[in-house]
């Protein structure tokens, strides 16, 4: 396993498209993205946990799997999202946890963010191991932190995570790949592209009678509820699309 550089936009778009394809869709449908239906096409379960932290995640996973999981993460501050994905010789455990006291739109973003790590970072590493015919397995974890722990509404996040090799069923603490800021940014971009598909946004905007050169400050509010995302997330997305 080697850490890769920041993924180009095309890779993120391909990963998002594969999510739709894996769920049996040719392309995104108009309106709210059926996020939980899309996630359901993967062997990952999603749960909402109160007071989510790494220790809460350990506790939850232990209850759910009957085994105390390795995490490869330090710290125990409040989290908005958490990904645990473990694979070794056909055995797989995949779980996304989100803080259930967050707003619904924030929870959806957290789920999409963690799915982004799974698609962008976990799957390629597994594919590489398979290609190398390695006996190793893989454990990947990601903890999505609040930019401001007091503000659960903001989706401005940072995160920390790691990818650890698994040999003979044992998670090895080294060499660990630490999730970089770039990878967190990629997961955020993945979430934005997934929840607010550019094709659908452009179609929608075409029907909103937007006049060139006229103010568009209201657009984010207008579209946020149509896509069941926060206004803040929509502001960023529209800016990224230069709309």
């Amino acid at each position, binding site marked *: 396993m080697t850490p890769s550089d920041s993924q180009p936009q095309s890779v993120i778009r391909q990963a998002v498209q594969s999510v739709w394809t894996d769920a049996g869709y040719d392309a995104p449908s108009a*309106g*709210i993205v*059926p*996020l*939980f239906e899309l996630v359901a096409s993967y062997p990952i379960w*999603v749960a*909402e946990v109160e007071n989510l932290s790494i220790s809460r995640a350990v506790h939850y996973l232990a209850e759910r799997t009957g085994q105390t999981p390795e995490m490869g993460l330090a710290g125990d501050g409040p989290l908005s999202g958490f990904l645990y994905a473990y694979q070794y010789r056909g055995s797989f455990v995949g779980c996304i946890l*989100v803080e*259930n*006291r*967050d*707003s*619904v*739109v924030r*929870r*959806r973003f957290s*789920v999409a963010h963690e799915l982004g790590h799974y698609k962008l970072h976990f799957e390629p590493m597994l594919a590489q191991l398979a290609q190398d015919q390695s006996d190793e397995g893989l454990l990947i974890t990601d903890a999505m932190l609040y930019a401001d722990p007091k503000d659960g*509404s903001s989706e401005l996040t940072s995160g920390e995570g790691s990818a650890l090799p698994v040999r003979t069923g044992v998670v090895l603490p080294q060499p660990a790949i630490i999730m970089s800021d770039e990878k967190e940014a990629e997961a955020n971009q993945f979430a934005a592209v997934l929840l607010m598909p550019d094709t659908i946004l452009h179609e929608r905007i075409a029907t*909103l*009678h*937007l*006049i060139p050169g*006229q*103010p*568009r*400050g*209201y*657009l984010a*509010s*207008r579209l946020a*509820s*149509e896509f*069941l995302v926060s206004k803040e997330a929509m502001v960023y997305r529209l800016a990224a699309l230069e709309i």
Partner: protein
Amino acid sequence: MGLDFVRNYGGSRLEGGSSLPDQFGTPTNGEEERQQIQLDIERNLDHWTAIPVSQVNQWRPGQWAYSPIRYIDGKDVGQIIAWIRSPEGYPVPIRLSQVGGVAMRVIEGDIRREFFQVEKVISMPVDFFPADEVESFALAIQGHGFRLLPATLSRSEYLMNYEKLRSIADQRTREEMMTLEEAAIAQDAGTPTIVDGALDAHAGGFDKNTCPVFGVIKRHYRSYLHPAGQLLLYGLRAAERTPAFVLRREQRPALLTWYLKINDEPGLTPDSGYVRVEVAYDWFITQHMDWDFADRLSRTLYEYRCRQRSYSRAAVSLHPIVRAEESLGSLFSTESSIYQRFYRVTEI
């Protein structure tokens, strides 16, 4: 889950009696925040006297470059039509509404509808519920022409207070109505425009530095004036205004504002018949306006006052805004048919 969401959480109909009075201009319009009021911007406090606006000689509003020819209004017709129980068992209201925004244009004396958007929306506090179930419900009602407006709140603070939840649902609908009004403004924000309500609530529809968009506020929940100014306000005659003053707020654009009496017919209460006009102060400065602007704008608004006595809020209304409201009303479906549709699809 989908449409079963309502039934699964113990949905109950709530028919009749929960319709709310008009809330245009309530204190939630940002009027409660801390602000500095500069009263001596046009006149020294010692010289606050009524300023007649019908004395602008040899001039007709239609000949003035800044005469507003676009009028923006919104409408929110709806009520709490059902309630469900949160997973903890607390009642959570569901508000179903039709909301719309419209732009009317005055063309050679005619008032024509220029633009409108109308939507059916369901607003409710949703953060108590699992996100996958809320998403599924939102998707399902989307298929029936309703849009879910998630009303976000602090869970621990409000869950047990039904009245608070109800007001949050109401407020969320109202915000959406104002977003539609902003969309209407933005269709041609470079043309002089009057918006029904506070400018702050419509800031997403225009550029405060370059767009001649002015607010007219009919309800007055806060007094900005000094005692002499307040007495002056109560004593205004029709077509008179107070001197202008400036409201400076934290993190919001400063506003130039004044009161204008548009109706002093006998029988009105002392605090009726006047509106408060708002102009973005930055626009006023960057466009090099003077107090003649305030007189002319006031005169134009006075000319457009509602003279339709049968209209319940005629004393504080402008005719084009009344027409806008009527125009939007004609685009709405009957309330009962919408409510019945919701009951039918959710099977409650």
